């Protein structure tokens, strides 16, 4: 099984069964709906005549610069553009793709293919895409130097290829995406922070394409990791319904940040589409200045009455719809619904079943009003080595919680 490259095939000459010249190979098509990696059709350009198509089962021999057919010219079909075909030259060469194993965006220099002989015909299967110097050298020298020279040069260069299974195409047109069977399951399996980095390397149209085809949870997680200006750009282009679905999945503080970055009209439309409870939560957060404790806090917090025992508290938490990332601290409230204490979940875990939660609370009890400046927040986190900090309203009732990851994000932005 020998390796062939798209660069060597494109521009090559095609001969029919009689050995007559038919045309030059100008494009290779893959039909992902049928076989994800097989070159299904060869486009043969014939100058001023209409181009013809050779099917894979009509090809008996393939080598750099030449292909031979087992049929005659009149048996070949005429070419009609088909959206469901992936064009190696147009859709792959020189375009950006996502390398899902290396988790980055790369540009395709060449496409590597392997030959498979089946009952007297030759099939080409795409094995890798070349993103390194070898492909670059081949592209540059093809037709200018002899194939032997090119092979010798590329042997000396470091190869960088990506296996075809790990190649994720970026197709902005949603209809074509379906026809080409492009799914983003591999992207959904990535860590959102990695995916966010990838998104930042793409153009707005491509980012939009990816966000709109991810599942809502992955889309929300990825948006949450991205630069806020980018996030609002992306959300503004989504339709409000889809935007609302994604924002619902975000933590309320991040959702509020995204909404705050949108134009008032879009922000209004998106809130309209969100279910009442989530919309109210986010709206409440939107009231606060971004650089205040209120702007940093998350309204998803878990609290129990201060008289509860450890067992009761755990039972209560289990029945709540909590996001695990948020579950760091349990807040205690007294009879007037005022903040009475904060219990680290770690301490709760180690305590005996029947212990009163109030006995587990961290000392001293620190909290802030929502209009406190973010600087005060940083100071408190530093001074008391906090992981979470409660935010209370004028009556001392807990209204939100700031977690240490919010603090890190803010501090990094100030660097």
């Amino acid at each position, binding site marked *: 099984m020998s390796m062939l490259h798209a660069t060597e095939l494109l521009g090559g000459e095609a001969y029919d069964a009689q050995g007559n010249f038919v045309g030059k190979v100008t494009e290779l098509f893959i039909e992902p709906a049928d076989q994800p990696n097989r070159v299904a059709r060869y486009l043969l350009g014939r100058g001023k005549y209409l181009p013809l198509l050779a099917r894979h089962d009509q090809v008996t021999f393939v080598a750099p610069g030449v292909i031979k057919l087992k049929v005659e010219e009149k048996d070949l079909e005429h070419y009609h553009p088909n959206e469901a075909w992936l064009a190696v030259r147009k859709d792959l060469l020189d375009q950006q793709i996502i390398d899902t194993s290396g988790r980055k965006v790369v540009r395709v220099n060449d496409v590597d293919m392997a030959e498979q002989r089946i009952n007297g015909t030759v099939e080409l299967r795409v094995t890798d895409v070349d993103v390194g110097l070898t492909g670059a050298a081949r*592209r540059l020298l093809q037709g200018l130097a002899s194939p032997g020279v090119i092979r010798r040069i590329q042997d000396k260069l470091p190869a960088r290829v990506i296996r075809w299974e790990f190649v994720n195409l970026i197709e902005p047109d949603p209809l074509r995406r379906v026809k080409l069977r492009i799914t983003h399951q591999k992207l959904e399996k990535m860590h959102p922070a990695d995916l966010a980095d990838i998104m930042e390397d793409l153009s707005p149209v491509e980012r939009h394409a990816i966000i709109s085809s991810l599942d809502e949870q992955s889309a929300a997680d990825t948006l949450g990791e991205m630069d806020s200006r980018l996030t609002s750009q992306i959300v503004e282009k989504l339709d409000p319904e889809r935007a609302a679905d994604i924002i619902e999945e975000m933590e309320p503080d991040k959702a509020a940040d995204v909404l705050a970055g949108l134009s008032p009209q879009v922000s209004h439309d998106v809130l309209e589409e969100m279910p009442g409870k989530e919309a109210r939560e986010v709206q409440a957060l939107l009231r606060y200045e971004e650089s205040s404790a209120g702007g940093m806090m998350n309204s998803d917090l878990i609290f129990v009455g201060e008289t509860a025992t450890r067992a009761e508290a755990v039972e209560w938490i289990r029945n709540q719809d909590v996001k695990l990332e948020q579950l760091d601290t349990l807040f205690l409230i007294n009879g007037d619904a005022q903040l009475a204490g904060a219990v680290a979940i770690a301490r709760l875990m180690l305590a005996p079943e029947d212990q009163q939660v109030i006995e587990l609370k961290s000392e001293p009890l620190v909290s802030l009003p929502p209009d406190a400046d973010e600087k005060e927040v940083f100071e408190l986190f530093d001074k008391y080595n906090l992981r979470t900090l409660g935010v209370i309203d004028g009556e001392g009732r807990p209204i939100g919680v700031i977690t240490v990851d919010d603090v890190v994000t803010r501090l990094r932005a100030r660097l």
Partner: protein
Amino acid sequence: MDYTSINNRVEQWRQRAVGVRRRGRHTWRRLALLLAILGPGLITSNVDNDAGGISTYSLAGAQYGYLLLWSLIPMTIALYVTEEMCARMGVVTGKGLSDLIREEFGFRPTFFVMVTGFFVDLGNVVAEFAGVASAMQVFHVSRYIAVPIAGLIVWVLVLQGTYRQVEKIFLALCSFYLAYLFAAILAKPDWLQAARHTLIPTVEFNTGYLLMLTALIGTTIAPWQFFYLQAGYVEKRLGPRQYPQARADVIAGSVTCMIIVFFIIVATAATLYTSGHRNITDAADAAQALVPLAGKWAGLLFAFGLLNASLFAASILPLSTAHVICEGLGFEAGIDNKFSEAPIFYWLYTALIVIGGGLILIPGAPLWRILVLSQVANGIWLPIVLIFMLKLINRKDLMGDQVNSPTFNVVAWVTVVAVIVLTLLLVFYSIFFPTAATGVGL
């Protein structure tokens, strides 16, 4: 007053204070947004006034007085027209110019553009370090000390910073161009006459005059700036919605660039031309000649301006060149990467500085020939890049309804053809009449 009414009053005042504070923050944020976007255009245009540029402008002032000032207005327009297209492509497609060229025209044209670009920029980097050397000569510092230190500063500055920090430093450097404003004021020019010549063109038909005119335009429009500019907007993540701000940035850049040129020409015209010192050879020469005529401060400010411009351009050119080449050919690029992540990028960057600076230090190096070669390469490069740009910006599938309007296309093509003809003329002169070309500071 009873307790409740006092309380109410206090509450009212508190509310009002909150309102004021909020409005204040709002205004501040809008200002910050504008400042955040101001950047690429301003930086690019100012880097245009690099060592080579300042020499040409000084010579124009010294040899023709205020006569050539009128050319600044068409030059501003040409600068705006070409840069605006890049800004628009940047915000609409979100891709750099080299990315677009690669995707739409394929590997070989891209490679050709990148390799030629490398040599053009190398020539420019040599010119910048030559500018550092001659400016420091005015301050009596040997080039063997000045150039290595400058190279090191530039290298470290970029490698140690993040994009945002570096850009802040660059923006601060832009304000040092004000040195020329003060130099011009100290030169006590005839402002009325300067204004008259700016608005009313005077055309002479002799070789020297036409060549100088050509050189002025040739130094102002350089292809690397398009790549830098577009990459700048992409890196700042501006979308189509921020296009008006990006355009404002381009306008601000083109106009300030030309204002600086105006002051340089005025400063030299008022002194060197009026007193008959018309045979200077470069900007450092002009700075030295200014001392007896307009005082020590004018001369030193002029030299300081040259030093600043050279250092500024020497920091940006190698960076943008390495960036553009890597981006086009698909290698990892950008100062936010570590050395091991983007080795080719960092090697290119270092090579440009080391070779560019090193050539200045070799006694008897054929600097002159390098500069002519670089000028010739530029003459080939510029037309190709400009034509690629015009083709790209008229592509409906890329730009949607943001393609050039028919009127803008006419303006753009006229500008592009004019710039190309003038550049080719310069190339012709640098090859066949090198002596005439030296006279315009090439």
